[in-house]
């Protein structure tokens, strides 16, 4: 725990939950969370880079251990997509799902890094006092992913049904084609379109953010004395182990929702 922030609990938590920001323009909008962005880029490069380096040497013969692992991942994602989407999944949805799963999984997994140890021994010496490790506990990341999926969803909806078909669907489903119920249909569809990215992103964000906060609270407890240190260490270990489940589960759910939304966009009602 960084000494200058150990004095008050609120200071400690506020310190750990604030971002390393950079102004790139006037106004509140033009701030970039450097920590979130850099961590996610690094993790993206590591994940897809590793997979790419394995895939580049892939052979159809006996696979190497690395290739076997990547193929396991591939098979897992491909199976999930196959069950949900029945079109040509290899051109977009399945690779997108693999990207989402691997990337989000790694970003979530940053939660395993012990926050104070990282702050004190890694980020502190680098002069990154406010650095946060977990990109997915930044709502910007989850919204970015969810909105990208959302735009892709609309893009595929228009692509598979045509602009006219899509607009027709906005007004004429799910209740019927009668002009009297067009407003009801439209309202219904709007709620659906708004709730999708919200629930998609906030589910992941909430889980990761809450996980981080609990680690912080346990860290606070650990600072209160010997009893607190022991209890905090035990509970922290327990929470970390439970977090393994949450990290993987949330990455899986995020991928599944991505696939489901994109698959639904291809179906006409």
């Amino acid at each position: 725990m960084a000494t200058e922030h150990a004095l008050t609990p609120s200071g400690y938590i506020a310190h750990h939950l604030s971002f390393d920001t950079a102004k790139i323009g006037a106004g509140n909008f033009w701030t970039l969370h450097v920590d979130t962005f850099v961590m996610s880029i690094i993790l993206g490069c590591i994940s897809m880079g590793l997979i790419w380096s394995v895939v580049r040497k892939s052979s159809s013969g006996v696979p190497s251990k690395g290739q076997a692992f990547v193929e396991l991942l591939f098979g897992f994602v491909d199976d999930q997509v196959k069950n949900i989407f029945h079109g040509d999944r290899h051109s977009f949805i399945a690779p997108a799902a693999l990207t989402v799963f691997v990337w989000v999984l790694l970003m979530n997994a940053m939660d395993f890094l012990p926050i104070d140890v990282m702050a004190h021994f890694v980020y502190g010496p680098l002069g990154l006092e406010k650095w946060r490790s977990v990109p997915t506990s930044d709502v910007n990341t989850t919204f970015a992913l969810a909105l990208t999926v959302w735009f892709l969803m609309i893009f595929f909806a228009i692509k598979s049904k045509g602009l006219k078909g899509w607009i027709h669907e906005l007004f004429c489903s799910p209740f019927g084609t009668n002009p009297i119920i067009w407003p009801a249909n439209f309202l219904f569809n709007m709620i659906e379109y708004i709730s999708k990215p919200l629930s998609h992103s906030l589910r992941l964000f909430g889980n990761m953010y809450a996980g981080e906060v609990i680690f912080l609270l346990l860290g606070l407890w650990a600072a209160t004395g010997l009893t607190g240190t022991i209890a905090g260490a035990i509970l922290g270990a327990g929470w970390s182990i439970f977090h393994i489940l949450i990290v993987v589960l949330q990455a899986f759910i995020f991928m599944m929702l991505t696939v489901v939304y994109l698959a639904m966009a291809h179906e006409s009602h």
Partner: protein
Amino acid sequence: MDIGFTLVAQAIAFFVLIVFTIKFVWPPLLNAIETRQKEIADGLAAGERGRSELEQASKRSAEALSDAKNRASEIIAQAEKRANQIIEDAKNTAKSEGDRIIGGAKAEIEQEVNRAKEELRQQVSILAVAGAEKILRKEIDAKTHSEILTAIAKEL
């Protein structure tokens, strides 16, 4: 919770990652896996073919084997029959030969006996004639009574 430019940056990063995956990661992997699947399927089909061929071949060989066995036992049965026949023939031949030899011997013995009888008869008749000559002396003419003497000799 402050939504800002980070969102745009992350969205761009995300999109770039997806495009990267679609372009460079997914196709070679898919290709490798599908090629292997095909190879495995081909291999399995070849194995299946080989197995059915082996089955047929073993069936054929079993047929050939039982055929050969049947023929062998047939040949053995024939040979046995033939051997029995030869033995039987040999026995018959030997028996008839023995009979013939015995018959010849018997005939010879009979001939010998007859000859001996004849000789004996003649000697007896001579003896009888000589005895009668001695008894009757002149009364008997050998020439006139030879017919009677011969008849007597024959009756002996």
